[in-house]
């Protein structure tokens, strides 16, 4: 991130903030969408997070830490959105049914379905760790910094989350679906 842009926005430069928002907006939205699993909620969370970035930027002491700081605000906004509304409608992407489907593709669809169910059972805390680590490729210490929790907590959450997702993948539905495809 361009720290000069951050510094200018910190001092109230709205043009600089606009550039900053354009630079980070897609990434924040992608993270929010993966945490919340809902397009509308993700948009609301991203909007609130970007406004929080603007409003709280003067409090950021080290502009070089902008990315981690912005992720923290985003996760906080995701919490707020998740609590504000309980719209947890599935947001699955369905493959066309009239196209030939290889068994691997069918397996992938089943995996997605199981993952979606398993992921939705996780708390926002656990989802955030999974997304920051496995989607953004942030090392665990950086995840800890972004979430403002100890690294040990991050490891624990990640372990718990991945165990839950693995259990979801191993659920009974998968062999049943494969059997049906044969």
């Amino acid at each position: 991130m361009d720290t000069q842009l951050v510094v200018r926005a910190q001092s109230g430069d709205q043009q600089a903030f606009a550039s900053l928002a354009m630079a980070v907006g897609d990434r924040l939205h992608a993270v929010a969408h993966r945490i919340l699993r809902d397009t509308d909620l993700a948009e609301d969370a991203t909007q609130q997070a970007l406004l929080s970035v603007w409003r709280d930027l003067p409090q950021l002491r080290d502009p070089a830490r902008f990315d981690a700081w912005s992720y923290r605000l985003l996760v906080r906004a995701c919490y707020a959105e998740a609590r504000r509304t309980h719209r947890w409608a599935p947001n699955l992407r369905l493959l066309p049914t009239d196209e030939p489907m290889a068994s691997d593709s069918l397996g992938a669809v089943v995996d997605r379905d199981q993952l979606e169910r398993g992921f939705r059972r996780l708390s926002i805390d656990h989802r955030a760790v999974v997304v920051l680590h496995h989607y953004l490729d942030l090392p665990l210490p950086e995840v800890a910094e972004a979430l403002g929790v100890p690294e040990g907590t991050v490891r624990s959450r990640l372990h718990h989350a991945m165990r839950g997702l693995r259990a979801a993948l191993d659920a009974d539905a998968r062999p049943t679906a494969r059997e049906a495809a044969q």
Partner: protein
Amino acid sequence: MSTDRDTTRIVRSWLDEGVTALPDRVLDAVLDQVPTTPQRRAWWPARRFPPMNRFARFAVVAAAVVTLAVIGYNLLPATGLFGSRATPEPTPSPAASPMTLHSGTLTPGAYLVTPFGLRLGSDRCAGNPSPSANPAASGCSDPRSDDSTRITLAVPDGWAGIDPTAIWLAGQGSTAPSGAALVFGRGAWLHSDPCLTAENEGAPDIPVGPTVDDFASAIADHPTLDATTPVDVTLAGYSGKYIDLQLPADISACHPYFPWEPGIYAQGPSQRSHLWILDVDGIRIVVQSMDYASTSAERRAELQAIVDSIRIEP
């Protein structure tokens, strides 16, 4: 049965799918709100200097020239071209020509602070609450107009300026467990729950009037603040109330812990604030020093000496 590696691979692949682009309408909505969304008070506030006119520029340049001349003179050997001169005072006094407070480590001496010529704090009290703030919270008692109150103080070795408005320990700053700082404010509305979180980040909701007693009583009567009973005090020739405030030992869930706003949020757990709430010709000024139980006695004594050296020119 999946292995851990399989699970990780599948999860990563699954996460890679899906939305990445933020719709323009969302970004537009954010940018539309920016002009009416004040930036939140910074502990070390963002500075917005008013444009200078020619006279002001000349005055600044002239002051700089005089300052350099004084420094140059003081650096001359005692038996130099200009003859002998008096040994410098070992203890700085604010009565001497003060330097303007600046960021960074300070050389010992007298400094001039004009804390209220800048906007210390957010404008959330000025009728522009943040989107999630209480819409009615628009009446903070912090005067919004700039003023030229001048405060001079004597700073010993080992202290640093923070912007032109406050000082803290050089290197250590104001953070726990042993930092220390001094800042000036006007007092303001209080948060009924100072522990601000994502769900509780509204504007301050306890109205506070403009007088010394209003602010002192509000702090003393606050249901969760651990404050001493206000006592009469005189500082720099102005009367007022003195209060000690002990902040909680665990503020880890607070983002941040903010007793009143505009003001200074907690710099660390178990921070102690010492408040001199003064009536300066009808205007309330709050002198706030901060330390911790682990701040050394020497540093605490220096901080108190700085407070005792304060002179105020309304």
